[in-house]
């Protein structure tokens, strides 16, 4: 990485976190990440330890979030649930990006029959609302954490494919791309070394936005009872069980929901602020290249 590119990234990050909403969201996400992954070493709590005498206990000094029906510490289950959510979301977004970006790249770069075939396949993925597509996949794969991850990931493929394709189409006929081709750059070289590096901005925004979608989708699947199987703690499953005890322990279903909502809102805010910051940067860059007599 060149020093100039590094500097530009720092610049973008600075601009991003000068927005108070983005700063707050970033701080919350960082805290969630740290808690979720350092919990086993840092916090003296166990999400699986049962104490039946504490069953459905309301929030107290010992159990800050109360205890669930088996007397397990709900705070611990919410924190370990964050771990499940974040891992599933990261895996799903990685799958979506690894399949979607190459599809969009090839479709947009070559056009013609490759474009037609690939985009029809994407249309098939879009022929059902995302959650139903994921449910259908889980019906086949069986219920497991991996199945949830893969199902959520596949539903994210179309958005990466479309965004990458649109970006490639806008770059395809630009002088610098034609120049690389004229100089004898192979298709693969031109695609991956010339077009892709100039397409990262909208893809990066998509990564953030899709993380929030993936977390929501995974939670929804677990809430429906087809996502991550128990006893692994997950936010969706906590809400599902909590819903059965609304009269006995109202906080049971409320507190995990707050964690879930704040995470989704933070990612969404971060994504939208990032989009505006990158948009502004491109406008500035566009203006300067206009000035250089393009």
């Amino acid at each position, binding site marked *: 990485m060149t020093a100039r590119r590094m500097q530009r990234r720092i610049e973008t990050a600075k601009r991003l976190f000068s927005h108070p909403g983005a700063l707050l969201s970033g701080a919350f996400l960082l805290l969630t990440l740290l808690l979720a992954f350092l919990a086993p070493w840092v916090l003296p709590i166990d999400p699986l330890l049962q104490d039946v005498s504490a069953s459905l206990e309301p929030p107290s000094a010992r159990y800050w979030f109360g205890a669930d029906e088996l007397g397990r510490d709900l705070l611990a289950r919410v924190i370990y649930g964050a771990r499940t959510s974040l891992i599933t979301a990261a895996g799903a977004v990685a799958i979506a990006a690894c399949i979607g970006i190459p599809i969009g790249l090839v479709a947009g770069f070559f056009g013609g029959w490759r474009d037609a075939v690939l985009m*029809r*396949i994407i*249309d*098939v993925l879009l*022929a*059902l*609302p995302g*959650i*139903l597509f994921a*449910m*259908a996949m*889980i*019906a*086949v794969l*069986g219920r497991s954490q991996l199945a949830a991850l893969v199902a959520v990931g596949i539903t994210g493929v179309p958005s990466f494919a479309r965004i990458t394709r649109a970006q490639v189409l806008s770059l395809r006929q630009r002088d610098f791309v034609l120049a690389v081709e004229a100089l004898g750059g192979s298709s693969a070289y031109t695609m991956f070394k010339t077009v892709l590096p100039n397409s990262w901005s909208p893809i990066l925004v998509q990564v953030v936005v899709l993380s*929030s979608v993936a977390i*929501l989708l995974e*939670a*929804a699947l677990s*809430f*429906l*009872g*087809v996502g991550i199987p128990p006893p692994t703690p997950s936010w*969706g499953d906590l*809400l599902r069980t*909590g*819903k059965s005890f*609304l*009269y006995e322990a*109202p906080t049971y*279903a*409320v507190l995990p*929901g707050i964690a*879930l*909502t704040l995470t*989704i*809102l933070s990612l*969404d*805010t971060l994504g939208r602020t990032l989009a505006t910051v990158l948009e502004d940067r491109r406008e500035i860059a566009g203006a300067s290249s206009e000035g250089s007599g393009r």
Partner: protein
Amino acid sequence: MTGYIVRRLLQLLPVLLLASLGIWAMIYAVPGGPVASIVGENANPEQIREVTQRLGLDRPVLVQYWAWLTSALTGDLGASLHAREPVLHLIMQRVPATLQLGFCATLVGLLLGIPVAIASAIWPGSWIDRTLSGWSALALGVPTFWLGILLILLFSVELRWLPSASAYVSFFDSPLQALRNTAMPALTLGTYVSGIFARFLRASLLSELKADYVRTARSKGLPERDVVGRHVMRNALLPFVTIVGLMLANFIGGTVVTEAVFTYPGLGRLLIQAIGSRDYPLIQGCILFILVIYVLMNLLVDVLYAYIDPRIEYR
């Protein structure tokens, strides 16, 4: 126009074929294949042979797909393994409930979303706009199943006004009971949709407000109320129609989560129950049904849009 519709339908054909192939193949991808999914994993060879023959599973795969597809096209989606009833019959029983919820939720979404969009588009950047944009973000960010739980806690557990489990009562039979049962699910789903509506209409209004005709209208002294109410709204509502239509299409299957929160007996709950009991013909039937409606609704919205906006070229 007719040519455009025909072309779009032809474009849909490969998508529908590929999707139906996927749905049909589902049952073969299940461990043990279609036979195990019907007779269970501990069946004796007799039973397996009997089912294999009865379902024609000893025929070539393509013949099997063709037979499945042609009977599906005539509305024969097979029989449910558990209810022992035709799948289409079970689906049709649930459709009115889902439609009623979908329409009510759209109504709530419009009632909440349109005023929010207008207020924030008239004063862009003001504190009103910022507050309302925050509201839209909240409406979109709060998971519907959690919002539903909060509503149950308030209206059923605390106030005891509404039932925590919603039954399906048609508005045509008993309007009051229907309202009691549909209010919370519709509010839950409607709040979410209002966020989409508000964001979209705001953007659409803002871009219209920059148009030349707005400047003309203002400079000839037309009151702002008429500029927005008469001229801008008409043009801004045009693209908005598509979003409302797409939402309705989404609701054919997209009420799954809300139905689960309120144990509302719609199509989505039927699908969840089918997945829970591994009732594969029912799963396939539900998904195929939702898919066809969803795809056709999307097409209808496109066509409607092209019809009401003469500037769109039919290509």
